């Protein structure tokens, strides 16, 4: 980056004072070299980012309005603009509608379940408990950092109908466990529980930070005013946790809307599409070579993510209370 060194060179080369570090260059020269310097630092990122992230976001939208297929990569002139056809087709595509329904259930049940569990664990860890705190924190967070693929393999093993650990434990209590992943009724709920199991550590860490940020004297004041534990939780803890909840809700929702690895490894979307997700359906269309149609599916998923995030903001925003 030679322009970086240019900074110390005065704008007039005849002056010959370049060796002496003392005086600053005139303001205008400073500003332009400043621009160059700024771009010098930002350029490698900007190029990579525009080409591989921002560009594709836009390209995806354009592709979704075309009938691009994998075969067209060799013959770009075979591509036609079809307007909103792909989007119209989506809403009469039974596979996609099933996938959208499954994703909706996964999000609507999974997000509150995950949040409730992580808040419970965080409250437990925050209630004056000092021993084993690191152990708990590390343990509960463990699944968050591990590969979903590996976890899915392990869970499939645990959930095997005859010799799996889960049914073995249920059998100990006299319950005859079903074939979890091969049953239309149980497959999706099983994946939801697994999602909560995997993600509760994330919410827990964030909620813990949020709980610790609530000033202790608020609780003392509430105790003096005679507020019981539950009232304190309902009228003090929960409102104070709103920004934290918003963050956990948005991040968890964004993750859940995209769920893909679990059904891919555990059920291949079955049985009878009962665990087919939107991301999985999109991946399948991509696999069939329907690039335009897959792009449209991906964009619908994107819009859903944005809308749900906005909904969470509206729901959990701090408006009047402070």
């Amino acid at each position, binding site marked *: 980056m030679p322009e970086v060194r240019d900074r110390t060179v005065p704008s007039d080369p005849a002056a010959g004072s370049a060796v002496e570090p003392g005086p600053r260059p005139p303001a205008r020269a400073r500003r332009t070299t400043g621009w160059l310097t*700024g771009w010098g630092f930002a350029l*490698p990122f900007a190029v990579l980012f525009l080409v591989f992230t921002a560009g*594709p976001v836009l390209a995806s939208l354009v592709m979704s309005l075309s009938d691009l297929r994998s075969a067209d990569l060799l013959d770009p002139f075979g591509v036609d603009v079809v307007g909103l056809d792909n989007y119209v087709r989506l809403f009469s595509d039974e596979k996609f509608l099933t996938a959208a329904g499954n994703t909706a259930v996964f999000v609507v049940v999974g997000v509150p379940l995950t949040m409730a569990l992580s808040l419970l664990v965080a409250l437990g860890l925050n209630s004056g408990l000092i021993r084993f705190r690191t152990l708990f924190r590390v343990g*509960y967070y463990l699944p968050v950092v591990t*590969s979903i*693929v590996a976890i899915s393999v392990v869970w499939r093993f645990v959930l095997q109908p005859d010799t799996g650990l889960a049914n073995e434990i249920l059998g100990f209590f006299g319950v005859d466990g079903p074939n979890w992943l091969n049953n239309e009724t149980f497959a999706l709920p099983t994946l939801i529980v697994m999602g909560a199991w995997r993600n509760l550590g994330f919410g827990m860490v964030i909620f813990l930070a949020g709980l610790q940020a609530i000033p202790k*004297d608020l609780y003392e004041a509430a105790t003096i005013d005679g507020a019981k534990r539950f009232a304190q939780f309902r009228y003090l803890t929960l409102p104070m946790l709103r920004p934290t909840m918003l963050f956990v809700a948005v991040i968890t929702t964004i993750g859940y809307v*995209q769920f893909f690895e679990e059904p891919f490894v555990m059920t291949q979307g079955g049985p009878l599409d009962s665990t087919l997700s939107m991301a999985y359906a999109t991946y399948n269309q991509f696999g069939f070579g329907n690039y335009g149609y*897959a792009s449209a599916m991906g964009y619908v*998923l994107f819009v859903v993510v944005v809308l749900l995030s906005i909904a969470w903001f509206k729901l959990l925003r701090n408006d009047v209370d402070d």
Partner: protein
Amino acid sequence: MTDTTTRTVPRPAVARLRSRDRIAKAVLYVLLFGGLLVVVGPFLWMLLSSFKPEGEIRADPPTWWPNDPTFANYGNLFDRLDFPTYFTNSAVVAVLTTVGNLLFCSAAGYALAKLPFAGKKALFGIVLGTLMVPSIVTMVPLFVLTSNLGLVNTLAGLILPYLAQAFGVFLMRQFILSIPDDLLEAARMDAASELRIFWQIVLPLCRPALATLGILTFLASWNNFLWPLVAATGEETYTLPVALALYAIGQNRTEYDILLAGAVVVVLPVLIVFILLQRHFVRGIATTGLK
């Protein structure tokens, strides 16, 4: 101030609360340990079972501790699958992706936080706008692009799209904003070049943020699935999760002896990194999430 308020609480009330607290605490411990067992249990089960011979894995009822511990399953990862290649691919992709993000994101983060340049607001706006874009949205154009560049089924094709990520720039910019301008101005007075200021002043101060970014990027890359699944079309470029997933859904789907050993190989490096560096995680999540 806190002192006076606590003193106004009547003593008997405090004592009664304390005895009730003790029972509550015991219940709490039981619940927390129970939960911990549910969360960690599958990992222990995976680890223990990976040392069982094939017959014992299928045993009904299952055994907890391996009766006849063996490394044969791990040996099979080498004999029947090409795990060393997948492992190397995963490591190369994760390390290069991490190094790239540390470098590009800290440099761009510095420019966005401290240097004036035309188009700065636009660039940051685009970064913010794409912060939450699901990876499935860019999958198709990215594949078309990669294939036009002739990079499908190459490690470069797996790395390039993730070399400069919005999250990293956001994190670094936020962190560098908190470095006092006076410090940089003083260095400029001494005629230090911006490159030197960045390298000798800014980067050393960014160490906590770099640690967080490095760990998070490494883990995300190591565990990344969708893009490698799409872009690695031949076995020679498979990463560990891709190899494991495809083995798990193929005709060998019930070979849990090999699958579990494979899962251990995928999970173990990450667990070690996480347990050694867990403090950075919490700090990282707290700084990025709650500002």
